[in-house]
C-alpha cells in the first residue's frame, strides 16, 4: 500500500486547516454583528453634529473658519488611511491600497507632496515602506471596540497641518461596508469641508453663543472631523470582519473539496492494493 499512509497524513493536515478556517469564519460572523451595532450607535452623533454645523456656519458668515476655506494651490496632500490590524481578510487592504496609490500618483504627477497618517498595522506597514511619502503619524491596535480617544492624535496632526497651511487637502481612505459580500474602497475629502454642510440651514433664527460663535464653531468642526474618521474606522472594522468571513468561507470550501479529492485518491490506492494482493495470492495458488 505505497502512498496510502502519506495520503492519510495529508488528509489529516487539511482537516486541521479546515477546523481553523471554520472557527475563524464563525468568529468573524459574530463580530460583524457587533461592528454593525457600533456603526449604528455612532450615527446619531454625526447626524446631530451635521445639523449643528449647518446652523452655526450660517450664523457666523462673517467669520470664515480655516477648515471651510479651500487652499488655492495644492502643494501637500494629506491622507488619513484606515487599515486593519490583522491579516487573513482577503483583498481588503490591497484593494484600498490600490485605489489610494492611484490617487497619490495623480497628485504626485501634479507636483504635490504626500503626507500620510496610518491607522492600523496593515496601513502602517504598507506606508513605512513607501519612498517619497511622508508618514507623520500612526496609531495601531484599536481592538474590537475602537475608542475615539485613540484617534485624536492622528486627526490633530492633520488638522493642525491644515490650519497652519502646511497641508492643503486632507482625504480619508477606508473600506465602506456595503454588505457582507461587498466592501468598497472609499476616498472621502475631510478638508476643506465640502460646502454642502454650510448651506443646510433653512430656519431664520440664531443661537445664543457661549462663548463666541467662532470658538464654538472651531470646537464643533474638530469634533465633526474626528467623528467622520471614527465612522470610517467603524466601517472599516465591519468590512474587515465581513471580508475575513468570506475569505475563510472560501478557504473552508476549498479544504472540503480538497479532502474529498484526497479521499477518492486514497480509496483508489487502497483498492488497487487489495486487487494486487488478491491477484498475487491467486497466481501464487495457481503456481502450486
Amino acid at each position, binding site marked *: 500500500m505505497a502512498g496510502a499512509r502519506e495520503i492519510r497524513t495529508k488528509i489529516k493536515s487539511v482537516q486541521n486547516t479546515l477546523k481553523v478556517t471554520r472557527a475563524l469564519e464563525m468568529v468573524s460572523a459574530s463580530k460583524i454583528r457587533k461592528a454593525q451595532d457600533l456603526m449604528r*450607535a*455612532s450615527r*446619531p*452623533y*454625526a447626524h*446631530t*453634529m451635521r445639523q*449643528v454645523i449647518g*446652523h*452655526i456656519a450660517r450664523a457666523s458668515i462673517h467669520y470664515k473658519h480655516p477648515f471651510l476655506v479651500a487652499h488655492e494651490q495644492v502643494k501637500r496632500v494629506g491622507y488619513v488611511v484606515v487599515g486593519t490590524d490583522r491579516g487573513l481578510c482577503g*483583498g481588503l487592504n*490591497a484593494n484600498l*491600497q*490600490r485605489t489610494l*496609490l492611484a490617487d*497619490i*500618483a495623480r497628485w*504626485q504627477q501634479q507636483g504635490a507632496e504626500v503626507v500620510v*497618517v*496610518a491607522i492600523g498595522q496593515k496601513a*502602517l*506597514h*504598507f506606508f*513605512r*515602506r*513607501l*519612498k*517619497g*511619502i511622508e*508618514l*507623520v*503619524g*500612526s*496609531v*495601531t491596535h484599536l481592538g474590537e*471596540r475602537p*475608542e*475615539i*480617544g485613540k484617534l*485624536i*492624535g*492622528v486627526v*490633530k*496632526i492633520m488638522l*493642525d497641518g491644515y490650519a497652519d497651511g502646511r497641508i492643503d487637502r486632507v482625504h480619508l481612505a477606508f473600506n465602506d461596508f456595503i454588505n457582507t459580500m461587498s466592501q468598497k474602497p472609499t476616498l472621502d475629502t475631510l478638508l476643506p469641508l465640502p460646502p454642502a454642510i454650510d448651506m443646510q440651514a433653512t430656519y431664520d*433664527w*440664531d*443661537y*445664543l*453663543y*457661549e*462663548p463666541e460663535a467662532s*470658538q*464654538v464653531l472651531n*470646537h*464643533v468642526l474638530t*469634533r465633526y472631523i*474626528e*467623528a467622520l474618521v*471614527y465612522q470610517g474606522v467603524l466601517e472599516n472594522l465591519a468590512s474587515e470582519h465581513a471580508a475575513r468571513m468570506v475569505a475563510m468561507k472560501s478557504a473552508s470550501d476549498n479544504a472540503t473539496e480538497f479532502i474529498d479529492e484526497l479521499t477518492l485518491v486514497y480509496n483508489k490506492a487502497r483498492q488497487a492494493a487489495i486487487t494486487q494482493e488478491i491477484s498475487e495470492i491467486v497466481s501464487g495458488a495457481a503456481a502450486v
Partner: protein
Amino acid sequence: MSTIRCDIVSAEAEIYHGEATLVVASGEMGELGIAPRHAPLITRLKPGQVRVIDTSGEEHSFYVSGGILEVQPQVVTVLADTAMRARDIDQAAALKAKQAAEQALANRSDAIGVAEAQSRLAEATAQLQALERLRKQLKH
C-alpha cells in the same frame, strides 16, 4: 406640563433619549438650567454632571468629560465627549501618534517607490485572477 426632548449622544453610543422637564449642565460660562421653550443656545461643556429630570420627576445624572450642548425650543442635545479632552492632552496624543510613526520608520528595511508598489500590487492581483480562472477551468 410642557416638556422638552433630551438627547444625550456620544460618538460611541446613544446615552439618553427621552422627555424632560428640566436639564441641568455645567457650561463653559457657568451652570445652565434648561426648561422647555428655552431660547436657542449653543455652548461648550465643562467636565461635570448633566442632570435630566424626566416627566415623572425622576432625576437621571450622567458624567460627561466635556462636549457641546445645543438647545432648540423643543430639543436639548448634548454631544458628549467620551475621552478626556484638554489642549495639552490632545497635544500629547498627537505627539504619541507622531512618535509611533517615527519608530516604525526607524526600523524599516526595504523602502520602495509608489510606482513599484503599484506594479507589485497589480501583479499580485493579476496572479490571483489567473489562479481563479485556472481553478474554474479545472472544475469544468
